[in-house]
């Protein structure tokens, strides 16, 4: 399983990568902003996308819209401090698959991956 991870915080990327490693996901491409995420993305090459919302360059919402224009099926997860209903609704309208508000529990990320990516329980 190959995952694209976009977050401007290097420490947050380490935390998320540790959570992904704990469920057996090792093939992770990490980037620090939205522009780099879109440069790294090629349809069919990733099984899941994890993106922050507030990042330099293109934000996570723009990343979701751009990827959805290329690929309607790839699961996209937003991991962000933006937890209000209106923000979640915006992300859903942009095409996000599921949503995690920071701070999040690793078990919750695991459950969402199991639900949407077919990760073994």
């Amino acid at each position: 399983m190959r995952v694209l991870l976009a977050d401007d915080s290097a420490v947050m990327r380490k935390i998320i990568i540790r959570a992904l490693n704990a469920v057996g996901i090792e093939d992770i491409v990490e980037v620090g902003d939205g522009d780099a995420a879109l440069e790294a993305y090629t349809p069919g090459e990733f099984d899941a996308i994890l993106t922050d919302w507030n990042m330099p360059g293109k934000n996570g919402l723009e990343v979701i819209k751009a990827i959805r224009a290329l690929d309607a099926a790839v699961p996209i997860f937003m991991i962000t401090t933006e937890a209000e209903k209106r923000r979640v609704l915006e992300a859903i309208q942009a095409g996000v698959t599921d949503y995690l508000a920071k701070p999040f529990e690793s078990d919750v990320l695991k459950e969402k991956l199991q639900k949407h990516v077919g990760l073994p329980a």
Partner: protein
Amino acid sequence: MNLDITQLMVWATKRTFSAMLDWEVEYKADADPTAPPADISGIVGLSGEVTGSIVLILPEAMAITATSGLIGDQLEELNGDVVDTIGELTNIIAGGAKSRFEKNINLSLPTVVTGPTHRVAYDSQANPVVVRFNCRGYEFAVKYCLDASATAAIGNNAAEMAL
């Protein structure tokens, strides 16, 4: 006026340190209302229907210990990971508080300032409030300075948050 917003900051801070680090944070309700000297400060600006800033103020040793716990590597000195961690913790505290306002608010990307015993200053018209905490033998603080509309924007949510 400030009690509800202070309550909100206490809730957001306790929640952030508990979830990210599994650290229990003690709110010092009767503490000195001035901010402790800071070695590292994370600053997030608010814009939109509520404006102002939220600042996380920490001693260097606490920031290094927190970062070591988060990345699983024992650090000896302040480095880029520590700066990144304090920015992210500030962002999560501000995001938690923002989620309880019934207003459309945007958060800036966090800015982090380092330097021994610095203070974050405001203009003479501002009315910043310091919320002090103890955690694992360290003293730290969250300092907020929000416009007058902030109190009305909280609604009834803060009443549900235990100090």
